[in-house]
């Protein structure tokens, strides 16, 4: 927790009435955090959130610049100056209205978005002036503050729009699917979301851990969508319970947002040993199935020494989870160096503060086990960086004779995911790329008329906010399609793909 005393904010007034000079003197407010030692053993949320005074002060830092660069940096186009301005005026209801109008899941994005590369990355207050690095407005922190206020205080449902008479199926209730469902229901369409698991939320409930995104927050966001008229059918495995052509026949349009749910393993000897998990399995056991809860009936191996292979956000989630499950030693094993880590810097800092060790330039060659089939170690090569590869990063090459065995009893493989063929294999008319992802035009329209797609099943493993951006953009295209019946793109042979490329891992 920040120990600096919080200065008193100016009274809550429209930002324009506070001189810019005065606003420029306010420092960025720190997010209060649970103490690293205590939190490394607790699933309670790490970030504690702003109080009213701190939120007011942070909002008063906004310069209300005319170009609103921050909005351009936001994949879902949140009207940031509008909601931040309302916070500065002390009008939280107004702030919530602005926020909820453009973002179906603000409690989620306020917690898990990489704001530093998006809205806050564009904020002029973050610019370096006369050699002094600036501090952008804490947009993400304010978004979280307003979303949490709205969850507790904004229970009334907006009046239902005029029904359009059109029916849309959304496949998958992750960030892309929920966002699209919220947008489409606002436009009067009848929306049914099909979810394979027993609980809606997709990666928000099975992947992202409680200490980063409490499940209660996801439930609140889902409940709000249901109150607005979105219907959610759980235990519906599209590709098995229903096929895509069947859903298409029964709806005016379908949005496929099933994610990239097929784990990638290392393909090294020993991966069948007991104690080797995919990150998907490890995190699902703990998050969705509640293995960490006293009354959770699903078991998970709580290793004393856990090695997590990979350097992305999922790897950080897994390794921090391992600490909380009681691991004395939780180690990230990454084949490149610190500079190439794809995880958010904040996640890496949090992990290190919680006692996680990082082994850089280390690549597994096999999992070692005992006679009873339990993992006892991870045999690795030490690496050095060679020439740049296709991704532009220097390729790690093994140092001859550098084998080491890292002793461990649990190995979590977090090196990415691929397209899951369960749905696509039952839709022969759906055009896929060679890796099995769905091909779409810039509007997310696939090769099947009326079938749209977005999120990881189109772009490959990326982020929550990019998937939400797809959900928002593609739902606008679906709305246009439902309203006019007109379409361009793949169905007419024009292939451009979704506008933002996949994140590299």
């Amino acid at each position, binding site marked *: 927790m920040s120990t600096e005393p919080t200065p008193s904010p100016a009274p809550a007034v429209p930002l324009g009435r506070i001189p810019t000079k005065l606003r420029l003197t306010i420092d960025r407010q720190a997010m209060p955090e649970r103490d690293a030692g205590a939190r490394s053993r607790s699933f309670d949320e790490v970030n504690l959130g702003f109080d009213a005074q701190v939120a007011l002060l942070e909002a008063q830092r906004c310069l209300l610049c005319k170009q609103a660069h921050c909005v351009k940096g936001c994949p879902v186009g949140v009207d940031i100056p509008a909601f931040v301005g309302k916070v500065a005026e002390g009008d939280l209801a107004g702030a919530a209205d602005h926020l909820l109008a453009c973002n179906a899941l603000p409690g989620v994005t306020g917690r898990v978005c990489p704001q530093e590369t998006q809205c806050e990355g564009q904020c002029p207050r973050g610019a370096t002036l006369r050699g002094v690095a600036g501090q952008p407005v804490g947009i993400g922190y304010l978004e979280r503050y307003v979303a949490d206020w709205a969850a507790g205080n904004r229970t009334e449902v907006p009046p239902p729009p005029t029904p359009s008479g059109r029916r849309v199926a959304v496949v998958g209730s992750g960030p892309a699917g929920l966002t699209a469902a919220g947008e489409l229901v606002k436009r009067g369409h009848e929306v049914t979301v099909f979810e394979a698991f027993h609980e809606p939320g997709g990666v928000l409930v099975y992947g992202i851990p409680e200490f980063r995104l409490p499940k209660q927050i996801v439930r609140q966001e889902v409940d709000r969508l249901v109150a607005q008229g979105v219907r959610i059918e759980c235990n519906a495995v599209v590709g098995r*319970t229903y096929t895509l052509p069947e859903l298409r*026949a029964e709806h*005016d349009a379908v949005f496929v947002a099933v994610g990239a749910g097929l*784990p990638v393993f290392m393909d090294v000897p020993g991966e069948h040993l007991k104690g080797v998990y995919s990150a*998907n399995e490890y995190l699902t056991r703990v998050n969705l199935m509640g293995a960490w809860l006293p009354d959770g009936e699903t078991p998970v191996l709580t290793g004393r020494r856990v090695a997590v292979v990979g350097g992305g956000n999922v790897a950080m989630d897994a390794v921090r989870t391992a600490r909380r499950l009681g691991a004395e030693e939780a180690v990230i094993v990454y084949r490149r160096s610190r500079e190439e880590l794809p995880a958010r810097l904040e996640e890496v800092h949090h992990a290190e503060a919680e006692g996680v060790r990082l082994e850089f330039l280390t690549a597994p060659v096999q999992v070692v086990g005992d006679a009873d089939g339990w993992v006892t170690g991870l045999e690795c090569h030490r690496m050095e960086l060679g020439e740049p590869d296709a991704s532009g990063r220097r390729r790690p090459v093994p140092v001859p004779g550098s084998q080491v065995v890292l002793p461990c009893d649990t190995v979590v493989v977090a090196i990415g995911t691929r397209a899951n063929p369960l749905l696509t294999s039952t839709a022969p008319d759906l055009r896929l790329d060679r890796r099995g992802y769905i091909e779409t035009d810039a509007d997310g329209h696939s090769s099947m008329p009326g079938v749209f797609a977005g999120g990881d099943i189109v772009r490959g493993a990326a982020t929550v906010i990019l998937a939400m951006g797809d959900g928002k953009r593609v739902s606008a295209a679906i709305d246009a399609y439902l309203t006019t019946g007109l379409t361009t793109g793949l169905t007419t042979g024009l292939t451009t793909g979704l506008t933002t490329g996949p994140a590299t891992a």
Partner: protein
Amino acid sequence: MIGPGDLRLCQTLPAPRRLADVNTVRDKARLSPNVTRLVVEAPRIAQVRRPGQFVIVRRGPGAERIPLTITDVDVAAGTITLVVQAVGKSTHDLVELAVGDAITDVAGPLGHPTDLLEAGHAVCVGGGVGTAVIWPIAQALAAAGVRVTSVIGGRSAEWVILERELASVGDVVVCTDDGSRGRQGFVTAALDDVCRGGPVDRVYAVGPVPMMRACAEVTRPLAIPTVVSLNSIMLDGTGMCGGCRVSIDGGSRYACVDGPEFDGHAVDFDVLADRLTTYRSFEQAALERRLATLEA
């Protein structure tokens, strides 16, 4: 451009489906000392399921997801039949459901349907509760005109299940360890006799891992294609977690989406048997806690 004519209006579409089927237990019967049959309302699954497929059920909040083969369906009644062997806490909880109770979650049908022999003679081998997995296969084979011989086994007479049902689709050889019903000994010996007694085109064998392994070893020298159904530990059943991975011909496959049925001669049964022990200590502890609660 696609014209407005392509856009189908809702009025022309079928009525919306029922949102969430309530999976009510409609009937229940004890088949052996630890095997129970549950008939559960699940109209959509009953309608689209094919032999060999399974469901994943979660009894209620906090409960585990457990995979169970769909033993039978009644499309008109909208029900599926599940046969549950009570071994751990979750399965004990499940078989304690009464008629009229609901199972919170039933997802499926999952997995590939059985690759059914099209003509000839098939031998269906069932060990213990595995007989409940064999029954829908035998039924479908017989319906397709394939000659079916069933070889089923149990510790003693009271542990043999579905004998009458299987007898309705072909010959049945019953084996018990103590000879209290049918011939004394393991199903493998009976399988060997049937295979040597006349042409057999395919064997389907489902039961405990050692039984499936032994059946595969009986048929390997005779070069009879042998299908086994693998019950590895599953979570989602959609290929998402990889926990059910099994070793087939040296490669890794997922029982939930690539199976559950595989070529018995290609399966690494050691890996399967070993991975099935992963949570043994947890299962033991959960069962002991459950007993303690019951006694309290």
